[in-house]
C-alpha cells in the first residue's frame, strides 16, 4: 500500500486518476481503517487528504457555511455558530460513534462510506446541502442525495473526490432537526433516521424537506412527506399525512436491527416527532 499526502486537490486528483488497483481517500479513517484492518478493502493507494489547504476549516460562504472535508464531528459540535443555525446537521453528525470517533470522523466520510444508515446524510439532504466534487474534468456541485447510489457505493468516478461541503444560508423563520431510532441510548447504528428542515410564515409552513435514512438502499428525499406539511400549521391532520407518506416511502430490509414492518412504522413516528422539533425551533408553536 502506498500512502500519499498530497498538498492540493489537483495533486490528489492526479494520484487517484493514475493509480492502479484499489484507491481510498483518508480523512478521519473511522471507516477506511476499519475496512483495511478487517481485510474488507485493501487499498493499493491510500490518499490522505488532510494536508490539503483549507480542509480543516469551517467558514462562512454566501451566508451559509463551507465545511472542509477533514473537519471532525467534534469540531462541528464545538463551533460557536454552526449549531445555532443548523442544529439538525450538527446533532446528526454528533450521533455518529463515541467521543473518540467524533475526534476524527467527518461529514464527507460519513457520506462517502455509502451506508444507508449514516446519520448525517438524511440531515444534510433535508437541509439542502450540496458538495463540490473535484476531478480530472474540473469541479461540479452535486446535491448530497445524488452522491450515494447503493450501499457502499457513490456516484463519484475514478479520480474524483469531494472537495467541500456547502450548507445553505439558514435564513429567517426556519430550522432543521434530526432524530434516529436505536434500541439503546448511545453507540448504535440507526434503525431509522429522519431529517426535517422547514421554514414558516406565521404558523404556516412555506418550505419543507423531509429525508429518511436506513429504510432503503440509500437515504431518501421524500417529497410527498414535505408536501404533506407545506401550507399547514402542522396540525394533527398534517402530521397524520406526513407519517403516512414517510411510511409509504420506505423500502427497507429485514435485519437484526429491525423488521420491514417496524421500520415503516417507526419512519412515520420519527417524521412526526422530527417535524415538530423543527417547527418549534423555527419559532412556531403547535
Amino acid at each position, binding site marked *: 500500500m502506498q500512502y500519499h499526502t498530497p498538498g492540493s486537490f489537483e495533486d490528489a486528483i492526479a494520484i487517484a486518476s493514475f493509480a492502479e488497483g484499489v484507491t481510498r481517500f483518508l480523512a478521519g479513517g473511522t471507516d477506511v*481503517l476499519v475496512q483495511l*484492518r478487517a481485510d474488507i478493502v485493501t487499498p493499493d493507494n491510500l490518499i490522505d487528504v488532510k494536508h490539503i489547504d483549507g480542509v480543516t476549516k469551517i467558514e462562512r460562504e454566501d451566508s451559509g457555511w463551507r465545511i472542509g472535508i477533514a473537519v471532525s464531528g467534534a469540531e462541528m459540535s464545538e463551533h460557536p455558530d454552526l449549531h445555532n443555525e443548523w442544529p439538525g446537521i450538527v446533532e446528526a453528525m454528533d450521533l455518529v460513534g463515541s467521543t473518540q470517533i467524533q475526534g476524527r470522523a467527518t461529514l464527507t466520510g460519513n457520506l462517502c462510506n455509502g451506508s444507508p444508515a449514516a446519520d448525517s446524510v438524511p440531515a444534510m439532504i433535508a437541509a439542502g446541502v450540496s458538495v463540490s466534487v473535484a476531478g480530472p474534468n474540473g469541479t461540479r456541485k452535486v446535491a448530497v442525495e445524488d452522491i450515494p447510489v447503493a450501499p457502499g457505493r457513490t456516484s463519484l468516478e475514478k479520480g474524483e473526490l469531494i472537495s467541500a461541503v456547502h450548507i445553505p444560508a439558514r435564513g429567517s423563520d426556519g430550522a432543521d432537526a434530526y432524530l434516529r431510532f436505536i434500541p439503546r441510548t448511545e453507540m448504535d447504528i440507526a434503525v431509522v433516521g429522519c431529517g426535517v428542515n422547514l421554514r414558516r410564515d406565521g404558523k404556516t409552513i412555506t418550505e419543507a424537506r423531509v429525508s429518511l435514512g436506513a429504510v432503503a438502499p440509500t437515504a431518501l428525499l421524500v417529497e410527498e412527506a414535505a408536501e404533506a406539511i407545506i401550507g399547514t400549521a402542522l396540525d394533527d391532520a398534517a402530521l397524520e399525512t406526513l407519517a403516512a407518506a414517510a411510511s409509504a416511502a420506505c423500502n427497507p430490509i429485514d435485519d437484526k436491527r429491525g423488521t420491514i414492518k417496524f421500520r415503516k412504522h417507526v419512519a412515520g413516528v420519527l417524521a412526526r416527532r422530527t417535524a415538530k422539533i423543527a417547527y418549534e425551533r423555527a419559532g412556531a408553536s403547535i
Partner: protein
Amino acid sequence: MSMVHVTATVNDDEVEFLCDPRETLLDVLRDRLGLTGAKEGCGTGDCGACSVTVDGRLVCSCLMLGAEAEGKSIATVEGIADGENLHPLQEKFIEHAALQCGICTPGILVATKALLEKNPDPTETEVRYWLAGNLCRCTGYDKIIRAVMDTASDLRKAS
C-alpha cells in the same frame, strides 16, 4: 514495501520512527516505541482501550495510522503521572477500586483526563456519555463514574 519516516511528539518527548504505511498508531506506540499502556481491545474503534490524545483531541489509536502522526503531539497514559506521583485520577481509580482486570483503564484514564480538561464540572450523565466509547466488562462502570466525579470535585476545590 517502503517505510514511512515520521517525527512526532509523544508525552512531550520528540520521537522518530519508521513504520509500514498500514501500521496503526497503536501498533507504533506499542511495538516501535515500547509504550504498551494503550491496549488493543477490538481494533475497530468500538472499545476505546487504545484511547490517546492527538493534538489534545481524544481518538482511538487503532483507527489512526502511524504515518498520520507526522508533526503531531500525542499523549498516552504513560504521560499522565508526574514521575512517581500519580495523577489525581489514577489515585481515585485506586481508592474507588474502579478497575478489575485493568485492560480498559489506560483508555479510560486518558479519556477522562481529556474530559476534565474540557469540562471541569461534568454531570454524571455527561461523564457517562463521554465514556460511552470506553467499554469495561468488569466493573459495571459505577465505580469508574464515582472515581471520575470524585476527582472532578477534588480538582475543582484545588483550583
